């Protein structure tokens, strides 16, 4: 008690003895228990209703869940997602850098692209690419007045899969461009100046200094976009691309198990987005290096630490002491 009364320690003295840890009765939260019980009851009722619905064939759900047709659809869904996101990210970065370029030509081309592809629905864009052959039976490029010329039938060039990939990817690029641009703008001006002062050119400053730091801002919304894209690929069904949703619909058409197949598709979509969410966490963590002194523990590390402290008695002294150990004085 005298330690507290005497105020701050005298110069040169040791830190005072550590007082006993606070033991207090925590505030009670009765309403949390009540509301928790209500939510549980409601959720239980919903689950029970569906589980026991006489017309819902759960056996068919489990059967189709691992059906070959569905699994093939999943592969195509994943292919579409990856390809569309790769196109979206690469083109998005190019568009964002163009948008911020000092050249008015670059900046305007980028603006118009974003305006157009963000302003029209993806569904219409996929539809457009898929039906392009009705107005342009051949597509080609060449230099006028020279024999340099190349053309190909639109049908061969743009398959249903290509139409969906183009529609999804080109649309995504417009959104990614805005995300990347926001990330670039978020990096402090001083970083660009420091790099310029070292003699680095515009491209080097962007690639080595600005973009890596912008990543911290770009990654979370990109994760969102990827998760969103995984589900948006179901729009490819308009071009009859046999991805997960198209497949489940086709099966439903000849088995009349409409809700059952919708549940099958939902379970798979949910499983895939869950995996992506976990992946997103680790990617974000990687790009946060340097932004914090120490990276926060992963859930796995936290779980392990919890197990350790659960079994061991609580430490008598805090493990991170703000004071120097007496031996070093």
């Amino acid at each position, binding site marked *: 008690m005298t330690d507290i009364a005497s105020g701050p320690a005298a110069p040169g003295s040791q830190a005072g003895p550590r007082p006993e840890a606070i033991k207090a009765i925590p505030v009670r939260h009765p309403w949390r228990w009540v509301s928790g019980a209500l939510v549980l009851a409601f959720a239980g009722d919903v689950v029970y209703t569906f589980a026991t619905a006489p017309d819902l064939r759960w056996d068919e759900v489990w059967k189709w869940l691992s059906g070959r047709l569905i699994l093939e659809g999943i592969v195509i869904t994943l292919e579409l997602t990856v390809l569309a996101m790769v196109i979206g990210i690469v083109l998005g970065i190019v568009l964002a850098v163009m948008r911020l370029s000092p050249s008015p030509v670059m900046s305007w081309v980028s603006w118009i692209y974003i305006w157009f592809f963000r302003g029209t629905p993806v569904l219409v864009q996929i539809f457009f690419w898929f039906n392009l052959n009705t107005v342009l039976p051949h597509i080609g490029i060449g230099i006028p007045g020279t024999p340099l010329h190349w053309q190909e039938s639109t049908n061969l060039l743009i398959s249903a899969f290509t139409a969906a990939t183009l529609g999804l990817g080109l649309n995504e690029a417009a959104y990614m461009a805005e995300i990347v641009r926001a990330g670039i703008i978020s990096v402090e001006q001083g*970083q660009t100046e420091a790099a310029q002062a*070292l003699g680095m050119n515009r491209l080097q400053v962007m690639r080595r200094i600005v973009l890596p730091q912008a990543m911290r801002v770009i990654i979370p919304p990109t994760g969102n976009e990827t998760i969103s894209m995984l589900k948006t690929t179901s729009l490819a069904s308009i071009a009859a691309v046999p991805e997960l949703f198209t497949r489940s619909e086709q099966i439903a058409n000849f088995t009349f198990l409409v809700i059952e197949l919708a549940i099958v598709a939902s379970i798979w979509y949910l499983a895939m987005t869950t995996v992506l969410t976990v992946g997103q966490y680790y990617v974000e963590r990687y790009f946060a290096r340097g932004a914090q002194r120490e990276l926060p523990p992963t859930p796995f590390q936290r779980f392990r630490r919890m197990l350790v402290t659960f079994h061991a008695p609580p430490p008598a002294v805090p493990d991170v002491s703000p004071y120097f150990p007496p031996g070093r004085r």
Partner: protein
Amino acid sequence: MSGPMVKAEAVHKSFGRLEVLRGIDLEVNPKEVMCLIGPSGSGKSTFLRCINHLEKIDAGRLSVDGELVGYRQHGDKLYELPDREVCQKRSEIGMVFQHFNLFPHMTALENLIEAPIRVKKASRSTAVTYARALLDRVGLADKTNAYPKQLSGGQQQRVAIARALAMDPKLMLFDEPTSALDPELVGEVLDVMRRLAQDGMTMVVVTHEMGFAREVGDTLVFMDGGVIVEAGKPRDVLANPQQERTRSFLSKVL
């Protein structure tokens, strides 16, 4: 090479309608340490940034090592330099910022080797060897793999100085290098700068550290309102200022 390292003649610079520099004339000779002092808004930092073309001047002539900054003269016509040449010239001038501006996603060592490898096309091993020697020179040999966030302000600024030195500059610009530091960390940065001056580096230092200016500076320039009010030997200017404006400024900061 006998001409001045930096030569400014009637340098003018405006931001919109605000005239920040209104005719700066000065010369910095090789191996000279010039300290620029003055109240905030007097244009000293802007002038420093003009020297490596982070800002464009509007009128007058500014040259480094006998070559115009940002332009080439043919007859009486000026041609703007392309980006490539501006970068080349900047790479020969080191700059240290008030807020350090280290690259936070790179370790101390990576901060130092980035520009030598990308700009000077040095081999990685050469760059690393030199970077280690420089970190040792600023007393941070044990912080090679630390990220900037893990360093104190004084340590960060010393890494920033080493980063500028890694390009082997012929001129070093310091923009209030100790203004963002806790008072007890100022000394370690000034020590590094003092040694640099002793080794014969040409330096232009914008500072509020009058002690440093008196001890290390060869010339002291007092700026106010975009013009040079008074210049001379630091001891003379500090002890016996000739202008009323200088006297009133010094009476507030000393």
